C-alpha cells in the first residue's frame, strides 16, 4: 500500500500516522506538505490530527483551503481512500467530503482519555479486519468533537449504515456516560456514500502497539493495507 500523510501547519499527529503505517503494516508512506499541489500516485491519503492553523476561526476551516486539498478532493472523487483522524475529520467536514460539522465538546473542555468504540459497520475498507460489534479501547484527545448534522442527514447516515464507529460504555451499550463529547447518535466515525472516505475523532494510530496500552487500532491499518494493496499500485 502506498500512502501519503498530509502535513498542514499545526498538524501534530502526522508523525504518529506515518509510524503506524510504516512500522506496523509496512506501508510505503511519505509526508506531503500542504503547499504541494499533488498527493501523487497513492492508495491512501491521511489527514492527520493536530491543530492546523491553530484551530483558529474553526477547526479545519482554514486548512481546507490549503493548496493540497484540491488534489485530496480529486483523489477522493476518483474513489481513492481518504482517512481523516481528529483534525483530519474536521477538515473533511469543512471541505464537504463528509456531511455535518464538529462542534465544541458539550463539556466545553478539551477531553483526553480512553473511550470504548463499537464497530457498527465491518464491511468498509477500513474495518474489514474487525467484526461488527467489536469493542475497541482507543484514546481520544480533542476540544471540538461533537458531531452535528441535521435530522435528515443523521437519518441517512443511520439508514445507509455509514456510521462506522459509535461511542459506547465498556459493556458495549450506548447510554449515560458513554458519550465523551455530546456527539449526535454517539457518532465517533462516519464514511461517505461511496465508503472510501472515513472521518473519525478517536486516534487509531495511538493504539497499535502493546507498549502504548492498546492494539485495537491496528486492524484498521491492516484492513487498509489488505484492501488497498490488492487495488494495484505498490
Amino acid at each position: 500500500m502506498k500512502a501519503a500523510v498530509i502535513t498542514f501547519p499545526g498538524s501534530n499527529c502526522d508523525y504518529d500516522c506515518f509510524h503506524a503505517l510504516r512500522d506496523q503494516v509496512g506501508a510505503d508512506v511519505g509526508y506531503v506538505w500542504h503547499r504541494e499541489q499533488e498527493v501523487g500516485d497513492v492508495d491512501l491519503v491521511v489527514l492527520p490530527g493536530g491543530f492546523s492553523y491553530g484551530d483558529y476561526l474553526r477547526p479545519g476551516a482554514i486548512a481546507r483551503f490549503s493548496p493540497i486539498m484540491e488534489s485530496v478532493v480529486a483523489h477522493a472523487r476518483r474513489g481513492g481512500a481518504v482517512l481523516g483522524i481528529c483534525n483530519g475529520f474536521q477538515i473533511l467536514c469543512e471541505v464537504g467530503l463528509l456531511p455535518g460539522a464538529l462542534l465544541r465538546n458539550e463539556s466545553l473542555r478539551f477531553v483526553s482519555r480512553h473511550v470504548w468504540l463499537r464497530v457498527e459497520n465491518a464491511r468498509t475498507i477500513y474495518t474489514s479486519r474487525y467484526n461488527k460489534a467489536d469493542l475497541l479501547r482507543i484514546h481520544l484527545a480533542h476540544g471540538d468533537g461533537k458531531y452535528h448534522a441535521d435530522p435528515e442527514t443523521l437519518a441517512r447516515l443511520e439508514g445507509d449504515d455509514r456510521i462506522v464507529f459509535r461511542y459506547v460504555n465498556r459493556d458495549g451499550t450506548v447510554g449515560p456516560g458513554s458519550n465523551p463529547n455530546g456527539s449526535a447518535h454517539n457518532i465517533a466515525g462516519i464514511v461517505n456514500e461511496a465508503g472510501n472516505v472515513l472521518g473519525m475523532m478517536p486516534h487509531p494510530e495511538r493504539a497499535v502497539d502493546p507498549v502504548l496500552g492498546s492494539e485495537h487500532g491496528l486492524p484498521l491499518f491492516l484492513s487498509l493495507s489488505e484492501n488497498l494493496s490488492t487495488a494495484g499500485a505498490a
Partner: protein
Amino acid sequence: MSRFVVQVLITPRPGLLDPQGSAIHHALQQLDFPEVSTVRAGKALYLDVEASSPDQAEARVREMSKKLLANPVTEDFQVHVEDADVTTAAGGGK
C-alpha cells in the same frame, strides 16, 4: 478607494444547542442576575477593508463570510459596514 471597518457577527443557527451560551447563562444566575432568560454566544470579527463604496465593502465581506468566516451548516452571519472611528474603539489596530 477608501477604507472601511466591517463588522461580521457570527451566531449559532437557531435551534442549535449553544452550550457556551447556557454556561454563561447559568453563571449569571449564580451571580444573581435572575433577569437574564437566555444567552447566545457568537463571534464578532472586525475587518479593515479597502473598497470603493460601503456597498462594495459589504458585498465583498459577505463573500468572505460565505466562503470562510461562517460555517453554513451551523452558523448564521450578519455584515455591518461601520465608520472607522467606532471600531478603533472596539479594538481596531495591528
